[in-house]
């Protein structure tokens, strides 16, 4: 399948927004060019701040710039701008409520050959734990472009999660809505919820399930915070079973957010699919994804088993 590189889509989108909005500044921790921000650097060298490999100080710097009305965009390999600098993210941006956009690229397992130091399987959990941080997890490059414009327009801290490689186009351009999920297919037997680039894989899995006669309501959530509560609860009430799929640990991300919501508002059987909660062996991306059971075939097989194993629940909701 042909696709586009999320980093290039992101960098070009920031560059476009910066042409319209003079407050936008990019901060590079030796990471700007590999984040697609070369165009921004060339046209606006005064608004492209290189600080070298220092994510902690870069995060504080972003907060300080934001106190004076700048809109800093700090993009680097995901673990280094979420885990490495977590206290600065929490205090300087979250607690100080500064208008800073933290962008984690090569999130999930997209740096699979580089091993667990470069895997980012807890970034959504970390960002989601900080009060007031909006968390955007786009599925395709069009959604990244929309999300960049939306996060700059949104006054407040944002975490934007990007993968890498080649991502197929899934959605119509301009269709992203803040805090709103999408319904990609309708069905009455099972709700499958996905977020991020793995959604392309999940679409194939859902097709396979439908062919097996299992009616699947497929929801794709573009944001984990704010989460589209009504969309999820309505589907869970109807289908009585929910599966979540994400390229993230099975703790604290999409599955965690959905579990917290459904436990309160619509307790139904839930299966959380994602990377198992251990340090994942390095290897070619496809092999690692299959190893985690996150390829379309594995997702469909596990979801079908889950449907079989769960008796219909009729007393809740």
């Amino acid at each position, binding site marked *: 399948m042909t696709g586009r590189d999320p980093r290039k889509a992101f960098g070009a989108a920031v560059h476009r927004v910066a042409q319209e909005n003079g407050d936008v500044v990019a901060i590079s921790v030796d990471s700007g060019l590999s984040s697609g921000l070369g165009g921004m650097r060339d046209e606006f060298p*005064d608004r492209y*701040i290189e*600080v*070298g490999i*220092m994510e*902690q*100080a*870069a*995060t*504080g*710097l*972003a*907060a*300080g*710039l*934001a*106190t*004076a*009305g*700048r809109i*800093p965009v700090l993009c680097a390999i995901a673990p280094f701008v979420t885990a490495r600098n977590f*206290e*600065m993210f929490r*205090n*300087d941006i979250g*607690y*100080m*409520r500064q208008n800073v956009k933290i962008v984690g690229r090569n999130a999930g397992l997209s740096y699979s050959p580089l091993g667990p130091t470069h895997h980012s399987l807890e970034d959504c959990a970390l960002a989601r734990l900080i009060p007031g941080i909006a968390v955007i997890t786009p599925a395709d490059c069009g959604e990244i472009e929309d999300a960049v414009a939306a996060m700059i327009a949104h006054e407040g801290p944002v975490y934007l999660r990007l993968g890498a490689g080649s991502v197929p186009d899934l959605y119509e351009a301009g269709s992203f809505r803040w805090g709103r999920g999408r319904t990609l297919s309708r069905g009455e037997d099972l709700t499958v919820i996905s977020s991020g680039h793995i959604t392309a894989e999940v679409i194939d899995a859902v097709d396979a399930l439908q062919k097996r006669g299992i009616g699947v309501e497929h929801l794709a959530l573009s944001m984990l915070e704010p989460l589209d509560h009504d969309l999820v609860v309505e589907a869970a009430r109807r289908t009585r079973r929910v599966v979540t799929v994400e390229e993230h640990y099975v703790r604290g991300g999409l599955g965690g957010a959905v579990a917290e919501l459904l436990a309160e508002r619509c307790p139904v059987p839930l299966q959380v699919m994602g990377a198992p909660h251990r340090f994942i062996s390095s290897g070619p991306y496809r092999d690692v994804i299959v190893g985690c059971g996150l390829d379309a075939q594995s997702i469909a097989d596990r979801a079908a088993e889950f449907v079989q194993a769960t008796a219909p629940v009729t007393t809740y909701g």
Partner: protein
Amino acid sequence: MNTIDVSTAEDIELRILATRARRNVLRMLDAGGSGHLGGAYSCIDIVTALYARVLRHDPANPGWAGRDRFLLSAGHKALAQYAVLALFDYFPAEVLDTYGAFGTVLPGHPDMKKLPGVEANTGALGHGTAIAAGMAMAARTSVESWRTFVLLGDGELAEGSNWEAFAMAAHHRLGNLTAIIDVNGLQISGEAERIMGMEPIAEKMRAFGWTVQEIDGHDHRQILDALGRARVETSAPTAVVAHTVKGEGLGRLAGTVGSHYWTPSREELGEAFIELDRRLVSLGRERVA
């Protein structure tokens, strides 16, 4: 040499102000029962001088875009800033009596969204200089320009994030940034140099590309002289290495580790008030004379 001339009369005025600020700190301890007095007292002469003579600020308009920024990286010294902000009418003095209460605008570490005049939410050490660098960098491309001052402790220098920020500020030639390092030599577990030796601090800062001045942090003439020179520096950030005494201002606490977080008895607090009130009387006599 750029100096701010301090006449004897002005010096007495600053000493009176700093003593009144120390008294405000006691007032907050009276309300809350305990607090980080030692570090507040080691830096309070500097903080008083900043607000009285150095910073461009307007208590009636604390959000003025062109104001100079002053933030604590050592956020636990918030008592010093609260005390001085009260002296300069950023808030009514009665608010000092809410220290320690649930929902107070004077939390144990400062919150910019609660109290006008506070520029950053510090308290976790090693955060302030990077934030200050961002403020300084923004000033270079703003219509209204300002200078940024950040105050650190010496124990705090063990946090590596400071050194990232020091390198960054020098690399980007933030001449409009001043870091004041309050070297009182003591931290919660004892002597700073025995816990993690960071000396020679001045040489390290020079090696990192900063312009460095070393002063006695309780001598108002030296404080104003150093900060006056920092104000006109343009090519490199300035570090003012201020040698101070933890708990300075109260005889029984000065130079003691125990002053770091003080929980006084009623008697001890009463004696401390008397000691500062006597100093105020004596400074008042010097002023008249």
